């Protein structure tokens, strides 16, 4: 039994912005409670985007609109392909392409803060990309298929064979969610050292689109987290949802208790963690296959 189908992909395209926005609202509420504040309403991210959409859009370079639209389209495509049950490798390549469009959005502004943030974002991509690709390979070794549909329909949850991959993926999830200590290129929190990083020169409607793209991306990322848990049994679906929530809570907690790191530490730690978790797990799974 698998829930991955074209109906699920369509559901993602329509509902992901609402779920993603709600998740961001939950993040801000939980963060506020952790800091002893009341915090904004759960619907605050929707008010924010609605306001951004109503504001004047100051365009620095007309290429920006094209890049941002491509970013949104490819992020949505990535998620739709994933929830359709498509090829995991294609899903991850499409995510990288979306990321590159986002980098180009910032670098085409030709402004110092945006350019610096664009370079940092490329560096972040270099830091997390090995783990992302390894995760796809891990799923293949564990289930014998790259197709999300088949992976989710396996008899055993992926995490049983791939605990190292799961831990490694959690680490890079902090980079992908743009949370402390890895919010180098841009983040939700105001007063970044790079003004607003990648978003510095975006305003109004274009900025609203970027927010929506992030919501799409977050829902997709938690889809991948859930994929580690899903198997052919129906009860794995609620378990996957609970695991996703716990992982999100952990990310928020880490975000609130840590300061931003320098790029060298981000880069080396991401690769070391990838080597210690993903690569070691990969070797063990490969040996098991040989032993069979």
């Amino acid at each position, binding site marked *: 039994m698998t829930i991955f189908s074209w109906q699920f992909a369509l559901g993602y395209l329509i509902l992901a912005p609402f779920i993603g926005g709600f998740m961001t609202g939950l993040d801000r509420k939980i963060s506020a409670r952790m800091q002893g504040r009341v915090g904004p309403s759960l619907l605050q991210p929707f008010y*924010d985007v609605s306001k951004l959409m109503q504001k004047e*859009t100051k365009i620095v370079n007309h290429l920006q609109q094209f890049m941002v639209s491509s970013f949104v389209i490819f992020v949505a495509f990535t998620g739709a392909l994933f929830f359709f049950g498509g090829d995991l490798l294609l899903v991850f390549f499409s995510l990288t392409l979306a990321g590159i469009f986002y980098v180009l959005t910032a670098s085409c502004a030709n402004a110092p803060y945006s350019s610096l943030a664009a370079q940092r974002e490329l560096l972040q991509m270099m830091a997390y990309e090995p783990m992302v690709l390894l995760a796809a390979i891990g799923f293949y070794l564990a289930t014998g298929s790259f197709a999300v549909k088949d992976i989710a329909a396996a008899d055993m949850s992926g995490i049983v064979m791939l605990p190292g991959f799961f831990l490694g993926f959690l680490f890079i999830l902090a980079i992908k969610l743009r949370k402390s200590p890895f919010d180098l290129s841009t983040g939700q929190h105001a007063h970044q050292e790079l003004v*607003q990083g990648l978003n510095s020169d975006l305003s109004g409607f274009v900025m609203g689109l970027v927010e929506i793209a992030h919501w799409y991306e977050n829902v997709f990322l938690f889809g991948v987290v859930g994929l580690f848990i899903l198997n052919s049994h129906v009860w794995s679906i609620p378990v996957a949802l609970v695991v996703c929530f716990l992982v999100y809570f952990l990310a928020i907690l880490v975000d609130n208790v840590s300061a931003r790191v320098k790029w060298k530490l981000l880069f080396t730690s991401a690769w070391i963690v990838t080597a210690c978790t993903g690569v070691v797990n990969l070797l063990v799974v490969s040996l098991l296959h040989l032993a069979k």
Partner: protein
Amino acid sequence: MAKMSKSPWVLHYDAASCNGCDIEVLACLTPVYDAERFGVINTGDPKHADIFLITGGINEQCKDVVKQLYDQMPNPKVVVAVGICACSGGVFKETYNILGGADQVVPVDVYVPGCAARPESIIDGIVKAIGILDEKKAALKEGRLDEYEAAHCKKKQQEVEA
């Protein structure tokens, strides 16, 4: 569509302040006052901001910066002068290097007096600014923002004179 007033993002600029008002501005975001309850975010980016909050008097050095920040903010936008120095120049009004309040360079919508301005009065000023933001949004939609601002400035001037 939700009203703009549900998500006021504030850009805070310290012109030539003694930091007294700046500390009070930041106090608004602490657990005691928690302005984020109302969606207020203290952003560092003029292109994302709705409310321009200026503390301190204006001098020759920061004059262009204030103008630049104001120009970079997308419409509709509201300017709030926090503290007596930003309102009129305060005790520094007659000094050779101070030009006066923030209204010497950009049109100010709300004046928050005090030395230093209390967090309560700053929040009160922001609430007033939010109301003006909605009015400006409506004016912008009807294409009469310039008209509205001219009338608004005139009204302010009459109030100050009275």
